[in-house]
């Protein structure tokens, strides 16, 4: 079947099997491998993307269900070489280690800050509670999101190295 959607601001039109999961569509068909896959059961959240601005677990969403909708992946956070403050916050506050859960965490953070620019620690923890990080123990992720809340636009940075 044919599916049409907007991914990171670009129209895409692709032929898919009706059973194709969104995560596989994004990774294998569109080649956007920043979205990861981790559990199959909506528990870990490494696959979170934004669908019309809402955090959505792409491992349990059919690609066909997002037809006509707007999808944002981690690759869509940086615009014109300017990082999203969430991205810079994660780097500044050591909010990532292996980096596997990070794209999903950052997208949830972006959706949260869009609705609530100054969330409390409790609200941040609640927002990311559908996602698992095995490396950081979450405190630095909370700090990263707080950093982003306190910095409206990130400066353009190429690389820390």
């Amino acid at each position, binding site marked *: 079947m044919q599916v049409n959607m907007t991914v990171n601001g670009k129209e895409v039109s692709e032929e898919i099997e009706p059973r194709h999961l969104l995560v596989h569509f994004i990774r294998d068909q569109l080649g*956007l*491998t*920043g979205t990861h896959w981790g559990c199959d059961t909506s528990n870990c959240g490494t696959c979170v993307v934004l669908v019309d601005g809402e955090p959505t677990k792409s491992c349990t969403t059919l690609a066909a269900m997002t037809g006509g909708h707007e999808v944002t992946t981690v690759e869509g956070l940086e615009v014109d070489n300017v990082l999203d403050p969430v991205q810079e916050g994660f*780097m500044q506050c050591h909010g990532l280690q292996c*980096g596997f859960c990070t794209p999903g965490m950052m997208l949830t953070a972006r959706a949260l800050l869009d609705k609530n620019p100054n969330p409390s620690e409790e609200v941040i923890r609640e927002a990311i509670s559908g996602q698992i*990080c*095995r490396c950081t123990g979450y405190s*630095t992720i909370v700090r990263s999101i707080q950093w982003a809340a306190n910095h409206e636009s990130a400066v353009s940075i190429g690389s820390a190295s």
Partner: protein
Amino acid sequence: MTTTEPAPEETEERPIGFGNLLRKEDPRLIRGMGNFVDDIQLPGMLHLAILRSPMAHAKINSIDKSAAEAHPKVVAVITGEDLAAQGLAWMPTLSNDVQAVLATDKVRFQHQEVAFVVAEDRYSARDALELIEVDYEWVDPVIDVRKAMDADSPVIRDDLEGKADNHIFDWETGDEAATQAVFDSADVVVKEEIIYPRVHPAPMETCGCVADVERVSGQLTLWSTTQAPHAHRTVYALVAGLPEHKIRVIAPDIGGGFGNKVPIYPGYVCAIVASLVIGKPVKWMEDRTENLVSTGFARDYVMEGEIAATKEGKILAIRTNVLADHGAFNGVAAPTKYPAGFFGVFTGSYDLEAAYCKMQAVYTNKAPGGVAYACSFRITEAVYLVERIVDCLAYELGMDSAELRLKNFIQPDQFPYESKTGWVYDSGDYEPAMRKAMEMAGYDELRREQAEKREKGELMGIGISFFTEAVGAGPRKDMDILGLGMADGCELRIHPTGKAVVRLSVKTQGQGHETTFAQIVAEEIGIPPEDIEVIHGDTDNTPFGLGTYGSRSTPVSGAAAALVTRKVRDKAQIIASGMLEVSVADLEWNKGSFSVKGDPSKSVTIQDIAMKAHGAGDLPDGIEGGLEAQICYNPENLTYPFGAYICVVDIDPGTAVVKVRRFIAVDDCGTQINPMIIEGQVHGGLADGVGMAMMEMIAFDEDGNCLGGSLMDYLIPTALETPDWETGHTVTPSPHHPIGAKGIGESATVGSPPAVVNAIVDALKPYGIRHADMPLTPSRVWETMQGNHTPPI
């Protein structure tokens, strides 16, 4: 010497060497531009899926794969019989046992590998698994570890010639008679059965690989989720008979390891065989269930602990009898001479008169493994035993658990300290760490609050754990895995323009090696970290070494990086002496340049020297061009990091829900390379500890069905179950490590579970509870409060 100064605040200026430095890994990872195994796509690549046994113990009578082979998108269907014809049905484990790649005669644990399908896409490969018909014949499984050695217990490993029981090994350490004598005359003896249930590391990225065998040259390139690429390459050479120089193992970005990615799993071998047979690249990625049910689990120790003390609280001896469940194949990753890993450090941080441990390891019809989940080769189990039994003693003596520990610490002037089980602790200064944790926690105030709450019937607990680890395996004279010595190489090249590349044998899975190893080199030679590229995870481009696990990267490979840099610096000094026309002895090093003693205006930078080393013109006599070196570091001893942890919990007496209110962790890992990264390592391990103590367990039913096969069943802490960690540190450098550093990667995973359990048990003191086994879920806490606590296994 121990110092307790706070970490320096980060400044705008980046450190040239040690200090807080943002990670070099992050710019790609925050953009989704990491390169994980499942991100790799090769032209013509096929997908492999594994058929697994639904039963824990069953004979395989027949397999019909014809329907699967007829699937239009299936390229091959391979069974154990097919592999046996090539002599590839079995492979060695890291403990000199063998494990079935695909089952031939029978299956020995639920979800064991039985056959695999290779198809054009991952969905079709999975579809075709459904088309394979296997005729199984039920055999009674051995699930209860306590019954594994019963005379009428079915023999699991009848593949081993002459095997008539489920015994793997007996092991002992310490002095049995001396320990008995101490116990006989002690005022107080406390005994408790302490169980460390089976848990799983469950890294966010599951295991997998892409195997690509080039048909003409026979070259195998394997992109693999491995923490030990060099060791894996050698094992593949030995298993498959492939020439080692034709094997290249690449570990790209790895989404967490925690020991789960140390062993070689059947799936890797299947993918290699498939690519070899078909002549195309083949990808295998586990799903989450496969990861939880078949790959390296951790712990599964039933420990009978005993402690002897005077009535004043002087601990005299500790004794333990352990029953170890290793699953269906002995797949433990541990140095050959240490079948129980480093469990021998169960004497902890205390100065004892005697100690003894007896252990028996057995097979059961459960997944193989045993050493994983950031355990530092079984030190997790050892620390849990000693820190739990010490609390049981405090309970019996009616003593404060902090006071009891302070009274029994090994004293600073006793280091290097040889324990009663023969471990030589390199350095330590325990009391300052303990006092610091108590001060951060406001310990006395917490105890006052607890007393008030108990008056009102509220449940609040304060748990302490003081741990000593032994990490950085290890000295070649004692330690090897499958005959491979546990030394690690490092190579450093300084390019003509003064930029550098350092190549490591170890492999990060998130620990930040690309940053910290650049800092080690920077500290030693004064080149800024951003000018130093760290290459790792590629056997063709790095020197040999055994990889990253057991917190060994900094103790072993970090030492190699420092020493190879000093070797390069020594050569640079000779070249500098020629450039400045003075003798070598007349030069002094200023972190980045050599200058003439007494005349700092005469100096050359390391960048000047690098250009000279590669440039035209004469060099001092006997000096070759270039500025590079390679070494292999053989550690003289392990390093012994330690820490003091305090956990505060509140329990709702109506629902038995435990809330971790605070967690204070003071760690000492010697010299700190990057405090930000150290804090991150500690935080992650603390969350692990909360998980193991309160949520995580791989359980089985009596038929051997795994009950922890998804993240809906195997519970991992989220941001809601974990508090905002409070960390601090002391610094007691290792005397034998070139930069004084110890390992930190696993300290918190090792040290935190007893702190959480001790806190929960302390909260339940009004109920007369002295011990309760993990995982302390609300239902298990509730049962404990009702006097119905049952062991988890």
